[in-house]
Protein backbone atom coordinates (compact mmCIF):
# COMPACT_ATOMS: atom_id res chain seq x y z
CA UNK A 1 0.00 0.00 0.00
CA UNK A 2 2.67 2.46 1.05
CA UNK A 3 4.81 1.74 -1.98
CA UNK A 4 1.86 2.11 -4.26
CA UNK A 5 1.07 5.55 -2.84
CA UNK A 6 4.63 6.70 -3.34
CA UNK A 7 4.43 5.49 -6.91
CA UNK A 8 1.20 7.25 -7.63
CA UNK A 9 2.23 10.43 -5.87
CA UNK A 10 5.15 10.79 -8.22
CA UNK A 11 2.67 10.82 -11.10
CA UNK A 12 0.33 13.71 -10.36
CA UNK A 13 -2.05 12.70 -13.12
CA UNK A 14 -3.11 9.64 -11.10
CA UNK A 15 -3.16 11.45 -7.81
CA UNK A 16 -6.67 12.79 -7.75
CA UNK A 17 -8.38 9.53 -8.67
CA UNK A 18 -6.31 7.32 -6.40
CA UNK A 19 -6.15 9.60 -3.41
CA UNK A 20 -9.92 9.53 -3.22
CA UNK A 21 -10.54 5.84 -4.01
CA UNK A 22 -7.97 4.51 -1.55
CA UNK A 23 -9.77 5.76 1.52
CA UNK A 24 -13.31 5.40 0.27
CA UNK A 25 -15.42 2.50 1.41
CA UNK A 26 -17.28 0.43 -1.15
CA UNK A 27 -20.43 1.88 0.45
CA UNK A 28 -19.37 5.35 -0.55
CA UNK A 29 -18.40 4.29 -4.08
CA UNK A 30 -21.87 2.78 -4.49
CA UNK A 31 -23.25 6.23 -3.74
CA UNK A 32 -23.94 5.76 -0.02
CA UNK A 33 -27.48 5.39 1.32
CA UNK A 34 -29.04 7.03 -1.72
CA UNK A 35 -27.03 4.96 -4.21
CA UNK A 36 -27.87 1.69 -2.49
CA UNK A 37 -31.56 2.57 -2.31
CA UNK A 38 -31.48 3.25 -6.02
CA UNK A 39 -29.86 -0.15 -6.71
CA UNK A 40 -32.43 -1.90 -4.51
CA UNK A 41 -35.36 -0.15 -6.17
CA UNK A 42 -33.99 -0.92 -9.64
CA UNK A 43 -33.56 -4.57 -8.67
CA UNK A 44 -37.12 -4.79 -7.30
CA UNK A 45 -38.41 -3.26 -10.53
CA UNK A 46 -36.30 -5.69 -12.63
CA UNK A 47 -37.52 -8.71 -10.66
CA UNK A 48 -41.10 -7.50 -11.04
CA UNK A 49 -40.73 -7.53 -14.82
CA UNK A 50 -38.87 -10.84 -14.97
CA UNK A 51 -40.54 -14.02 -16.19
CA UNK A 52 -37.90 -16.47 -14.97
CA UNK A 53 -37.57 -15.69 -11.30
CA UNK A 54 -40.54 -13.50 -10.38
CA UNK A 55 -42.38 -16.54 -9.02
CA UNK A 56 -39.85 -16.77 -6.16
CA UNK A 57 -40.91 -13.30 -5.08
CA UNK A 58 -44.64 -13.51 -5.76
CA UNK A 59 -45.50 -13.70 -2.06
CA UNK A 60 -42.72 -11.42 -0.87
CA UNK A 61 -43.60 -8.41 1.26
CA UNK A 62 -41.94 -5.75 -0.89
CA UNK A 63 -41.31 -3.16 1.81
CA UNK A 64 -39.80 -5.80 4.09
CA UNK A 65 -37.59 -7.02 1.21
CA UNK A 66 -36.58 -3.45 0.34
CA UNK A 67 -35.55 -2.65 3.90
CA UNK A 68 -33.68 -5.96 4.28
CA UNK A 69 -31.77 -5.60 1.02
CA UNK A 70 -30.86 -1.97 1.69
CA UNK A 71 -29.47 -2.95 5.08
CA UNK A 72 -27.69 -5.96 3.69
CA UNK A 73 -25.99 -4.07 0.86
CA UNK A 74 -25.04 -1.30 3.28
CA UNK A 75 -23.56 -3.85 5.69
CA UNK A 76 -21.54 -5.87 3.14
CA UNK A 77 -20.15 -2.70 1.56
CA UNK A 78 -18.75 -1.46 4.91
CA UNK A 79 -21.47 1.14 5.36
CA UNK A 80 -22.76 2.31 8.77
CA UNK A 81 -25.42 -0.41 9.06
CA UNK A 82 -25.86 -3.82 10.62
CA UNK A 83 -28.05 -6.31 8.83
CA UNK A 84 -30.44 -7.62 11.50
CA UNK A 85 -32.81 -9.62 9.31
CA UNK A 86 -33.24 -13.37 8.90
CA UNK A 87 -30.26 -15.45 7.83
CA UNK A 88 -29.73 -16.12 4.12
CA UNK A 89 -30.34 -19.84 4.68
CA UNK A 90 -33.64 -19.21 6.54
CA UNK A 91 -34.90 -16.83 3.87
CA UNK A 92 -34.19 -19.24 1.01
CA UNK A 93 -35.13 -22.56 2.63
CA UNK A 94 -37.85 -24.30 0.68
CA UNK A 95 -37.28 -22.19 -2.42
CA UNK A 96 -34.89 -24.72 -3.97
CA UNK A 97 -33.16 -22.03 -6.04
CA UNK A 98 -30.86 -23.52 -8.68
CA UNK A 99 -27.60 -22.17 -10.09
CA UNK A 100 -29.26 -20.90 -13.20
CA UNK A 101 -31.84 -18.85 -11.23
CA UNK A 102 -29.11 -17.54 -8.96
CA UNK A 103 -27.05 -16.37 -11.93
CA UNK A 104 -30.14 -14.76 -13.38
CA UNK A 105 -30.64 -12.79 -10.18
CA UNK A 106 -26.97 -11.71 -10.47
CA UNK A 107 -27.73 -10.50 -13.99
CA UNK A 108 -30.71 -8.49 -12.74
CA UNK A 109 -28.51 -7.01 -10.00
CA UNK A 110 -25.86 -6.05 -12.57
CA UNK A 111 -28.58 -4.36 -14.63
CA UNK A 112 -29.83 -2.58 -11.50
CA UNK A 113 -26.30 -1.28 -10.83
CA UNK A 114 -25.89 -0.23 -14.48
CA UNK A 115 -29.14 1.73 -14.25
CA UNK A 116 -27.86 3.39 -11.07
CA UNK A 117 -24.70 4.41 -12.98
CA UNK A 118 -22.39 2.30 -10.80
CA UNK A 119 -19.13 1.81 -12.69
CA UNK A 120 -17.98 -1.67 -13.65
CA UNK A 121 -15.15 -1.87 -11.13
CA UNK A 122 -17.43 -0.96 -8.25
CA UNK A 123 -20.03 -3.45 -9.54
CA UNK A 124 -17.40 -6.21 -9.51
CA UNK A 125 -16.36 -5.34 -5.97
CA UNK A 126 -19.91 -5.55 -4.68
CA UNK A 127 -20.39 -8.87 -6.50
CA UNK A 128 -17.17 -10.13 -4.90
CA UNK A 129 -18.64 -9.39 -1.44
CA UNK A 130 -21.92 -11.13 -2.28
CA UNK A 131 -20.49 -14.17 -4.13
CA UNK A 132 -19.62 -16.20 -0.99
CA UNK A 133 -23.31 -16.08 0.01
CA UNK A 134 -24.33 -18.27 -2.92
CA UNK A 135 -23.89 -21.45 -0.89
CA UNK A 136 -26.42 -20.12 1.64
CA UNK A 137 -28.94 -19.29 -1.08
CA UNK A 138 -29.05 -22.16 -3.58
CA UNK A 139 -30.39 -25.70 -3.18
CA UNK A 140 -32.14 -25.12 0.16
Amino acid at each position, binding site marked *: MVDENIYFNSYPIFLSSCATTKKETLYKRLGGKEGIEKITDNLIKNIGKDKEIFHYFAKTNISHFRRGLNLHLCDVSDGPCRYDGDSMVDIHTGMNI*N*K*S*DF*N*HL*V*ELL*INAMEEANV*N*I*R*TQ*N*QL*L*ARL*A*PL*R*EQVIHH
Partner: protein
Amino acid sequence: MSKYIFLFTILFLNINSLYSKGKLIAAPGVSQIEGSAGGGLVPWSGVAGYATDNEYSANAFCSRAIVEDFALTSCGIQFSAYDQIELSYAKQLFRVHPLALDLEQNITGAKIKLTGDLIYSKWPMLSLGVQFKKLDDPTVPFALGAAKRSGTDFYIAASKLHLGALGGYNWLWNTTLRRTKANEMGLLGFGSGTKEAKWMAEISTAIILDPELALGIEFREKPDNLQLDESNWSDIFIAWFPNKNVSATLAYVDLGKIATIKGQTGWYMSFTGYW
Protein backbone atom coordinates in the same frame (compact mmCIF):
# COMPACT_ATOMS: atom_id res chain seq x y z
CA MET B 1 -17.11 -26.20 -44.96
CA SER B 2 -20.68 -26.46 -46.28
CA LYS B 3 -21.06 -29.39 -43.90
CA TYR B 4 -20.47 -27.08 -40.94
CA ILE B 5 -22.79 -24.37 -42.20
CA PHE B 6 -25.43 -27.07 -42.52
CA LEU B 7 -24.76 -28.15 -38.96
CA PHE B 8 -24.98 -24.58 -37.68
CA THR B 9 -28.33 -24.17 -39.40
CA ILE B 10 -29.78 -27.42 -38.09
CA LEU B 11 -28.72 -26.66 -34.56
CA PHE B 12 -30.01 -23.14 -34.68
CA LEU B 13 -33.39 -23.96 -36.17
CA ASN B 14 -34.25 -27.05 -34.18
CA ILE B 15 -32.55 -27.02 -30.84
CA ASN B 16 -32.51 -23.35 -29.93
CA SER B 17 -35.51 -23.54 -27.65
CA LEU B 18 -34.56 -26.76 -25.84
CA TYR B 19 -31.48 -25.39 -24.16
CA SER B 20 -31.17 -22.99 -21.29
CA LYS B 21 -28.43 -20.50 -20.65
CA GLY B 22 -27.89 -20.37 -16.93
CA LYS B 23 -24.22 -19.36 -16.82
CA LEU B 24 -23.21 -15.73 -16.69
CA ILE B 25 -22.16 -14.18 -19.97
CA ALA B 26 -18.62 -15.13 -21.12
CA ALA B 27 -18.33 -17.77 -18.37
CA PRO B 28 -18.01 -20.72 -20.82
CA GLY B 29 -15.03 -19.14 -22.54
CA VAL B 30 -14.48 -19.82 -26.24
CA SER B 31 -13.29 -22.87 -28.25
CA GLN B 32 -9.66 -23.89 -28.52
CA ILE B 33 -8.14 -25.28 -31.73
CA GLU B 34 -8.51 -28.92 -30.69
CA GLY B 35 -12.21 -28.47 -30.03
CA SER B 36 -12.38 -28.24 -26.24
CA ALA B 37 -13.86 -25.25 -24.45
CA GLY B 38 -11.04 -22.95 -23.45
CA GLY B 39 -9.08 -20.10 -24.83
CA GLY B 40 -7.58 -20.29 -28.30
CA LEU B 41 -4.63 -22.61 -27.75
CA VAL B 42 -5.34 -24.01 -24.28
CA PRO B 43 -8.23 -26.16 -23.03
CA TRP B 44 -9.69 -24.66 -19.84
CA SER B 45 -11.37 -26.42 -16.96
CA GLY B 46 -14.79 -24.97 -17.79
CA VAL B 47 -17.34 -27.19 -19.47
CA ALA B 48 -18.43 -25.87 -22.89
CA GLY B 49 -21.61 -23.87 -23.26
CA TYR B 50 -24.02 -21.99 -21.03
CA ALA B 51 -25.78 -24.98 -19.46
CA THR B 52 -25.93 -25.32 -15.67
CA ASP B 53 -27.49 -27.83 -13.26
CA ASN B 54 -29.87 -30.01 -15.27
CA GLU B 55 -29.43 -28.26 -18.61
CA TYR B 56 -27.72 -29.27 -21.86
CA SER B 57 -25.83 -27.22 -24.37
CA ALA B 58 -24.53 -27.67 -27.89
CA ASN B 59 -22.00 -25.38 -29.53
CA ALA B 60 -20.27 -25.13 -32.87
CA PHE B 61 -17.12 -23.26 -33.76
CA CYS B 62 -14.75 -22.43 -36.58
CA SER B 63 -11.26 -21.02 -36.15
CA ARG B 64 -8.54 -20.02 -38.54
CA ALA B 65 -4.90 -19.18 -37.89
CA ILE B 66 -2.77 -17.76 -40.65
CA VAL B 67 0.98 -17.49 -40.09
CA GLU B 68 3.85 -16.87 -42.52
CA ASP B 69 4.14 -20.29 -44.16
CA PHE B 70 1.19 -22.22 -42.72
CA ALA B 71 -2.53 -21.93 -42.16
CA LEU B 72 -4.74 -23.93 -39.81
CA THR B 73 -8.49 -24.23 -40.05
CA SER B 74 -10.28 -25.99 -37.23
CA CYS B 75 -14.03 -26.45 -37.01
CA GLY B 76 -16.08 -28.57 -34.71
CA ILE B 77 -18.84 -29.08 -32.22
CA GLN B 78 -19.22 -29.49 -28.47
CA PHE B 79 -22.00 -30.99 -26.45
CA SER B 80 -22.31 -30.64 -22.71
CA ALA B 81 -24.60 -31.97 -20.01
CA TYR B 82 -25.32 -30.57 -16.53
CA ASP B 83 -22.20 -28.40 -16.65
CA GLN B 84 -20.35 -31.61 -15.74
CA ILE B 85 -19.41 -33.39 -18.95
CA GLU B 86 -18.22 -32.08 -22.29
CA LEU B 87 -17.86 -34.05 -25.52
CA SER B 88 -16.21 -32.46 -28.53
CA TYR B 89 -15.18 -33.18 -32.08
CA ALA B 90 -12.89 -31.08 -34.26
CA LYS B 91 -11.56 -31.42 -37.75
CA GLN B 92 -8.28 -29.67 -38.47
CA LEU B 93 -6.92 -28.77 -41.88
CA PHE B 94 -3.29 -27.68 -41.87
CA ARG B 95 -1.96 -26.07 -45.02
CA VAL B 96 1.81 -26.25 -45.54
CA HIS B 97 2.42 -23.61 -48.17
CA PRO B 98 6.08 -24.43 -49.05
CA LEU B 99 5.09 -28.00 -49.95
CA ALA B 100 1.58 -27.18 -51.23
CA LEU B 101 0.48 -29.88 -48.81
CA ASP B 102 -2.62 -30.31 -46.64
CA LEU B 103 -2.53 -32.34 -43.45
CA GLU B 104 -5.83 -33.30 -41.84
CA GLN B 105 -6.46 -34.40 -38.30
CA ASN B 106 -9.59 -35.48 -36.41
CA ILE B 107 -9.85 -34.90 -32.68
CA THR B 108 -12.46 -36.33 -30.38
CA GLY B 109 -12.43 -34.90 -26.87
CA ALA B 110 -14.06 -35.39 -23.50
CA LYS B 111 -13.85 -33.37 -20.32
CA ILE B 112 -15.29 -33.98 -16.90
CA LYS B 113 -15.56 -31.39 -14.15
CA LEU B 114 -14.26 -32.73 -10.87
CA THR B 115 -14.92 -29.95 -8.41
CA GLY B 116 -15.31 -26.25 -7.86
CA ASP B 117 -16.93 -23.35 -9.63
CA LEU B 118 -15.29 -20.77 -11.85
CA ILE B 119 -16.70 -17.84 -9.87
CA TYR B 120 -18.25 -18.86 -6.58
CA SER B 121 -16.07 -21.52 -4.99
CA LYS B 122 -13.12 -20.63 -2.83
CA TRP B 123 -10.87 -23.10 -4.66
CA PRO B 124 -10.35 -23.25 -8.41
CA MET B 125 -12.55 -25.29 -10.68
CA LEU B 126 -10.77 -28.55 -11.60
CA SER B 127 -11.38 -30.76 -14.61
CA LEU B 128 -9.88 -33.78 -16.34
CA GLY B 129 -9.81 -34.05 -20.10
CA VAL B 130 -8.77 -36.27 -22.94
CA GLN B 131 -8.23 -35.68 -26.66
CA PHE B 132 -8.02 -38.59 -29.11
CA LYS B 133 -6.24 -37.50 -32.26
CA LYS B 134 -5.79 -39.18 -35.61
CA LEU B 135 -4.14 -38.00 -38.83
CA ASP B 136 -5.78 -38.78 -42.14
CA ASP B 137 -2.50 -39.34 -43.96
CA PRO B 138 0.71 -39.79 -41.96
CA THR B 139 3.12 -40.08 -44.92
CA VAL B 140 4.88 -36.74 -44.38
CA PRO B 141 4.95 -36.97 -40.55
CA PHE B 142 6.43 -40.48 -40.86
CA ALA B 143 9.06 -39.15 -43.27
CA LEU B 144 10.00 -36.58 -40.62
CA GLY B 145 10.46 -39.35 -38.05
CA ALA B 146 7.09 -39.56 -36.30
CA ALA B 147 6.30 -42.98 -34.85
CA LYS B 148 2.51 -42.98 -34.94
CA ARG B 149 -0.43 -41.51 -36.82
CA SER B 150 -2.65 -41.29 -33.74
CA GLY B 151 -2.24 -40.34 -30.12
CA THR B 152 -4.08 -39.47 -26.95
CA ASP B 153 -3.51 -36.38 -24.82
CA PHE B 154 -4.62 -36.30 -21.19
CA TYR B 155 -4.90 -33.08 -19.24
CA ILE B 156 -5.87 -31.67 -15.92
CA ALA B 157 -7.02 -28.05 -15.88
CA ALA B 158 -7.65 -25.56 -13.08
CA SER B 159 -9.21 -22.15 -13.47
CA LYS B 160 -10.66 -19.34 -11.41
CA LEU B 161 -12.27 -15.99 -11.96
CA HIS B 162 -11.48 -13.48 -9.23
CA LEU B 163 -14.16 -10.80 -8.99
CA GLY B 164 -12.81 -7.27 -8.92
CA ALA B 165 -9.25 -8.51 -8.36
CA LEU B 166 -7.35 -6.42 -10.92
CA GLY B 167 -7.98 -2.83 -9.91
CA GLY B 168 -11.69 -3.62 -9.78
CA TYR B 169 -11.73 -5.65 -12.99
CA ASN B 170 -12.38 -9.38 -12.94
CA TRP B 171 -9.33 -11.56 -13.40
CA LEU B 172 -9.34 -15.02 -14.94
CA TRP B 173 -6.55 -17.56 -14.96
CA ASN B 174 -6.26 -21.13 -16.16
CA THR B 175 -3.45 -23.63 -15.82
CA THR B 176 -3.44 -26.90 -17.72
CA LEU B 177 -1.01 -29.79 -17.46
CA ARG B 178 -1.08 -32.01 -20.51
CA ARG B 179 0.50 -35.40 -21.03
CA THR B 180 1.23 -35.73 -24.74
CA LYS B 181 3.42 -37.28 -27.42
CA ALA B 182 2.03 -35.07 -30.18
CA ASN B 183 4.37 -33.33 -32.60
CA GLU B 184 2.99 -29.90 -33.47
CA MET B 185 -0.27 -30.83 -31.69
CA GLY B 186 -0.41 -34.07 -33.74
CA LEU B 187 -0.27 -32.45 -37.17
CA LEU B 188 3.23 -33.94 -37.54
CA GLY B 189 2.27 -37.24 -35.97
CA PHE B 190 3.02 -38.65 -32.52
CA GLY B 191 6.28 -39.47 -30.81
CA SER B 192 9.46 -40.58 -32.57
CA GLY B 193 11.88 -43.50 -32.19
CA THR B 194 12.42 -43.37 -28.48
CA LYS B 195 10.34 -40.54 -27.07
CA GLU B 196 7.73 -41.13 -24.40
CA ALA B 197 4.79 -38.92 -23.47
CA LYS B 198 5.72 -35.83 -21.47
CA TRP B 199 3.90 -33.41 -19.18
CA MET B 200 3.57 -29.95 -20.70
CA ALA B 201 2.37 -26.75 -19.02
CA GLU B 202 -0.18 -24.43 -20.56
CA ILE B 203 -1.24 -21.11 -19.06
CA SER B 204 -3.88 -18.52 -19.88
CA THR B 205 -4.80 -15.34 -18.10
CA ALA B 206 -7.25 -12.58 -18.93
CA ILE B 207 -8.68 -9.35 -17.64
CA ILE B 208 -12.43 -8.90 -18.11
CA LEU B 209 -12.74 -5.29 -19.18
CA ASP B 210 -16.49 -5.42 -19.46
CA PRO B 211 -18.79 -8.42 -18.91
CA GLU B 212 -18.67 -8.88 -22.68
CA LEU B 213 -14.99 -8.26 -23.40
CA ALA B 214 -11.90 -10.18 -22.30
CA LEU B 215 -8.28 -9.37 -23.06
CA GLY B 216 -5.69 -12.04 -22.37
CA ILE B 217 -2.57 -13.99 -23.13
CA GLU B 218 -1.80 -17.68 -23.48
CA PHE B 219 1.27 -19.88 -23.42
CA ARG B 220 1.49 -23.51 -24.46
CA GLU B 221 4.59 -25.61 -23.89
CA LYS B 222 5.30 -28.29 -26.52
CA PRO B 223 7.65 -31.26 -26.70
CA ASP B 224 10.34 -31.65 -29.36
CA ASN B 225 10.16 -35.35 -30.17
CA LEU B 226 11.24 -34.94 -33.78
CA GLN B 227 14.22 -32.80 -32.81
CA LEU B 228 13.16 -30.13 -35.25
CA ASP B 229 13.47 -27.46 -32.56
CA GLU B 230 9.68 -27.37 -32.09
CA SER B 231 8.58 -24.13 -30.42
CA ASN B 232 6.28 -23.32 -27.55
CA TRP B 233 3.21 -21.36 -28.63
CA SER B 234 1.81 -18.09 -27.33
CA ASP B 235 -0.86 -15.57 -28.20
CA ILE B 236 -2.50 -12.38 -27.10
CA PHE B 237 -6.26 -12.35 -27.59
CA ILE B 238 -9.39 -10.31 -27.32
CA ALA B 239 -12.69 -12.14 -27.00
CA TRP B 240 -16.07 -10.52 -27.43
CA PHE B 241 -19.35 -11.95 -26.14
CA PRO B 242 -22.10 -9.67 -27.51
CA ASN B 243 -24.72 -12.09 -26.12
CA LYS B 244 -25.07 -15.71 -25.00
CA ASN B 245 -25.49 -16.95 -28.58
CA VAL B 246 -22.13 -16.12 -30.07
CA SER B 247 -18.55 -15.16 -29.33
CA ALA B 248 -15.76 -13.83 -31.55
CA THR B 249 -12.06 -14.04 -30.78
CA LEU B 250 -9.18 -12.26 -32.44
CA ALA B 251 -5.59 -13.09 -31.53
CA TYR B 252 -2.04 -12.44 -32.54
CA VAL B 253 -0.21 -15.77 -32.41
CA ASP B 254 3.45 -16.68 -32.21
CA LEU B 255 3.97 -20.30 -33.27
CA GLY B 256 7.75 -19.92 -33.47
CA LYS B 257 9.46 -22.52 -35.61
CA ILE B 258 7.36 -25.17 -37.38
CA ALA B 259 9.19 -27.98 -39.22
CA THR B 260 12.40 -25.91 -39.04
CA ILE B 261 10.81 -22.85 -40.67
CA LYS B 262 11.25 -19.84 -38.39
CA GLY B 263 9.12 -16.78 -37.75
CA GLN B 264 5.62 -18.28 -37.78
CA THR B 265 3.64 -15.35 -36.42
CA GLY B 266 0.25 -14.20 -37.60
CA TRP B 267 -3.43 -13.80 -36.88
CA TYR B 268 -6.12 -16.00 -35.47
CA MET B 269 -9.88 -15.58 -35.67
CA SER B 270 -12.50 -17.76 -34.11
CA PHE B 271 -16.27 -17.84 -33.77
CA THR B 272 -18.35 -19.98 -31.46
CA GLY B 273 -22.12 -20.34 -31.54
CA TYR B 274 -23.85 -21.47 -28.32
CA TRP B 275 -27.17 -23.32 -28.17
